[in-house]
């Protein structure tokens, strides 16, 4: 029996439905069992995805294959989404006590079922999104992702910070959706098409009104800029990241962003012939790099720091977009997945003991050498020290930028890397230099220990031996 790509999404969808039903009818079970079932199911789909032969849809495809593609890029990012969701579910199990405490008078299990089921639907949305090659399909799957995030972001709603985050995310995300629809309408008006391939063909035709299409592209760019947290559409990021439940923050910063970049690459493809596009991206990349890195410098709250750092990394990724190097972006995103999830995993465990401030990490090396080492690897990888995945990500991005003579991007990039070393090492400094206020050990469950170890090993492994990812991306 051969598996085709759409069956993966259907399998995940069925898994999500089954979990909701089980949650509704089997009220007596420990809800964490559901999480384990979800993890096992997603892992199964992940394994199955390796047996799907990538196939790009032919340019004149009709029916389903005119809005859905299963090329290498989308297969890579389907696996990426599945892996992210698995890790996020593991983080959620660690986070369960916090969720419980936010449901008043509830039982031990209150609210957990939905908390574990919603990411599955987000995952389906992400998987559809990376395959979408038609504006209508892009819109629908983007909404699936966004709506499940509305609920997830404001899940622990007793916390006023979370409520603020939820409102901000809802309002601004809805606004960006408006921009997206408006942009799609302009592009459709100018070219008469919603399929990206056919839009490219239409743009090559000299009778097409390019200015109208360009206006549409800029409006779509606004909407996607919101998703990937590019300046000047980043205002929501620090507050939402800080207020949302931490596993959801991790999910937002990895899954949502990665899918945003894939869509950005696909959407920009038809417009590359227009010289204005690249200039626009370069300007956005420069602004994002400078803003993200400079604003991260004074942060004292680790979650907020990671929010700004996610803006900064969007800047490096935008360098890749400006050079239009899909494999560099994909590698960077893979590295970003590992190191960001690693940092969030440690943050969730430590934050439940002490807090989210960087000062709360003081003396962590004494209290839990394992967690401190994991955070060290996460931070130096985010900063870009060799032998970690983060360095190779930056290496490929800078390689592409130098090959295309993007001097401004390279110069600003190097300066901002210097900034990055400062704010990431601030965390290292807290863990290793400062002495702790408390000295009791921090307990780590076996599952988290396993997940964190896997992330550490993967971060270093990819930093030394990047070939597997490069092979997976080879066209």
């Amino acid at each position, binding site marked *: 029996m051969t598996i085709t790509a759409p069956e993966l999404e259907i399998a995940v969808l069925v898994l999500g439905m089954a979990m909701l039903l089980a949650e509704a009818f089997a009220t007596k079970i420990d809800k964490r069992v559901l999480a384990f079932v979800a993890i096992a199911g997603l892992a199964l789909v992940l394994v199955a995805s390796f047996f799907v032969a990538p196939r790009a849809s032919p340019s004149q495809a009709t029916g389903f294959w005119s809005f859905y593609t299963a090329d290498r890029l989308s297969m890579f990012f389907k696996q990426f989404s599945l892996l992210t969701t698995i890790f996020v579910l593991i983080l959620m199990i660690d986070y369960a006590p916090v969720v419980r405490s936010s449901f008043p008078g509830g039982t031990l299990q209150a609210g957990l079922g939905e908390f574990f089921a919603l990411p599955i639907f987000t995952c389906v949305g992400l998987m559809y999104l990376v395959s979408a090659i038609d504006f209508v399909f892009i819109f629908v799957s983007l909404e699936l992702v966004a709506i499940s995030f509305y609920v997830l972001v404001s899940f622990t709603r007793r916390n006023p910070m979370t409520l603020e985050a939820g409102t901000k995310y809802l309002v601004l995300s809805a606004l960006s959706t408006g921009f997206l629809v408006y942009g799609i309408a302009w592009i459709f008006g100018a070219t008469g098409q919603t399929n990206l391939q056919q839009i490219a063909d239409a743009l090559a035709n000299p009778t097409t009104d390019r200015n109208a299409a360009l206006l549409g592209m800029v409006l779509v760019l606004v909407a996607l800029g919101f998703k990937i947290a590019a300046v000047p559409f980043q205002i929501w990021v620090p507050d939402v990241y800080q207020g949302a439940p931490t596993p959801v923050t991790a999910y937002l910063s990895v899954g949502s962003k990665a899918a945003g970049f894939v869509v950005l690459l696909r959407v920009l493809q038809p417009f590359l012939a227009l010289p204005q596009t690249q200039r626009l991206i370069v300007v956005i990349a420069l602004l994002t790099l400078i803003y993200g890195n400079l604003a991260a410098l004074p942060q004292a709250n680790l979650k907020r720091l990671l929010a700004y750092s996610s803006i900064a990394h969007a800047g490096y990724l935008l360098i890749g977009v400006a050079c239009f190097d899909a494999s560099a972006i994909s590698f960077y995103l893979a590295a970003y997945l590992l190191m960001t999830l690693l940092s969030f995993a440690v943050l969730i465990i430590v934050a439940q003991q002490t807090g989210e401030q960087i000062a709360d990490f003081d003396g962590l*090396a004494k209290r839990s050498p394992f967690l401190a*080492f994991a955070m*060290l690897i996460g931070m*130096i990888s985010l*900063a*870009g*020290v*060799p*032998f970690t995945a983060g*360095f190779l990500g930056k*290496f490929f991005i*800078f*390689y592409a930028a*130098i*090959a295309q003579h993007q001097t401004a991007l*390279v110069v600003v990039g*190097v*300066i901002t*890397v*210097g900034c990055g*070393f*400062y704010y990431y*090492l601030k965390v*290292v*400094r807290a863990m*290793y*230099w400062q002495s702790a206020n408390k000295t009791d050990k921090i307990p780590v469950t076996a599952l988290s220990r396993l997940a964190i170890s896997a992330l550490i090993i993967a971060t270093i492994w990819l930093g*030394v*031996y*990047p*070939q597997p990812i*490069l092979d997976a991306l*080879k066209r």
Partner: protein
Amino acid sequence: MVLFIIFCHIIAAILIMAGAPARKTALVASVLAFAAALFLLAFFDQSQRDFQHVTSFTISPDWHLSFTTGIDGLSLVMILLATIVTLAAVWFTGTIEKYENAFYACLLFISGGAIGAFASIDLFFFYAFHELALIPTFLLIGIWGSGNRVAAAWKITIYLAIGSFILLLGLILLYQSFPLAARSFDIRALTAAAGLGQISADAQRHVYLLLLIGFGILISLFPFHTWAPEAYASAPAPAAMLHSGVLKKFGLYGLLRLAIPLLPEGTHHWANLLVVLLLGNIIYIGLVTIAQKRLDWMLGYSSVMHMGYIFLGIASATVLSTTGAVVLIFAHGLSIALLFALAGELRKKTGTLVFDELGGLGKVMPFASLAFGFGVFAAIGLPGLANFAGEIMIFFGAFKNGWEMAHFHIFQIATVLALWGVVISTVYMLRAYRKTFMGTMNERWKEVGDLRPALRVPVVLVVGGLLCYGFFPQSLVQMVTSTFQTYLSANSSHLADEQSCSHGAVRRLRFMGPADGNAPQGRSYKVANKR
């Protein structure tokens, strides 16, 4: 064997982090590495000009990236230096009160990284191994440093991070400046391709400038030097020994390994700039060193100042001066490590390094005083110690470059000024020696004891090395010269084919008159007098 030397330190560091007894493991690892380096030295085949003991693991065929290690004379000298200094530094560490295991692990990571960089034939790993030392240095200064350790740790880390990313840009540009078919991370392949003239002169100039700034920041080239004295003054003694003795030499090694063979046009295009900067190192930093009031700051500045001589050897790019540069790298690494080690012991025993409070310590610490004397005289460049051999070769080589009867060329002017640097270093070194060990002793220091016998072993080892290569520098020279002969002769034949004399290895100042009859050393050109 080469792999063993690299991973000996790194594996020991990982074991120590995992809880192995720190000092014992570290000592065993560094002794083993030193023995392995001696073994390599004993079985080094000087007749073979190419790399020896080569092992290679393919990482990425698409990028022509592989983990390839091996040694030639140049890298063997660097590895020997690194293993000796590591052994001395580990031996000198003693017991650490706070996080002992982490301290030793950091030390071993620094030396493992440095050795890995020296032994890598692959450009990518050459770069990456060096960076392995960045975080350990940050931690060493931050956790165990003294004085203004917080500022010093941030400064060195940010400086070195930016410096190495500039270097990375230079390396990427270097890689891309080769035609598509010749692109490789293998230094041997690049050298061969460059010998065929496959990098355009324009690209060479750009790449060289980036490498010069990138490496320059790592080496503390004036005006990028400000991190060095502060960091070395605040760092615990073993970290200062390793960093100034070994790690800083990575940049010089990189210029010798990459700039000399790959970028001859870049080397002489920017020679004038480099000469001005290195004179800044020698004269300006020399004068700043004289003004220092603390022993640790003085040593920090002096190590910056001595980089100027080595840069002179690299800038003039003759066989004689580059060989001298390697000898001086080796000698300086040993002597500065010795001085930092003894300064660290002094701080431990007296609690201060301010010159005005010290004095007369020679009476209570005769052995330390004698050893410090050796270090001081080596740093000045007294004949009989290895530094002298290196400096004299650099001066002769640089002076001969572009020499003509009628006029002085920029390299002769530079040599004359650099020789004044020897006078400057005599002033500050002897003054430091007098203020610390001579004169009337403060009553407070009556109870201060001499070095423990156990600590005398590494001192004797280092002084022995300085003396040995001071009297027999030829044994180092023989290992290194063939490398530079290959590098420089390949360049000159390529230059002679492509360029006329006016673009020769040496930039001629306008007022210097006709160019006949003084082909620069090491690169024989067709002297085409166009006028």
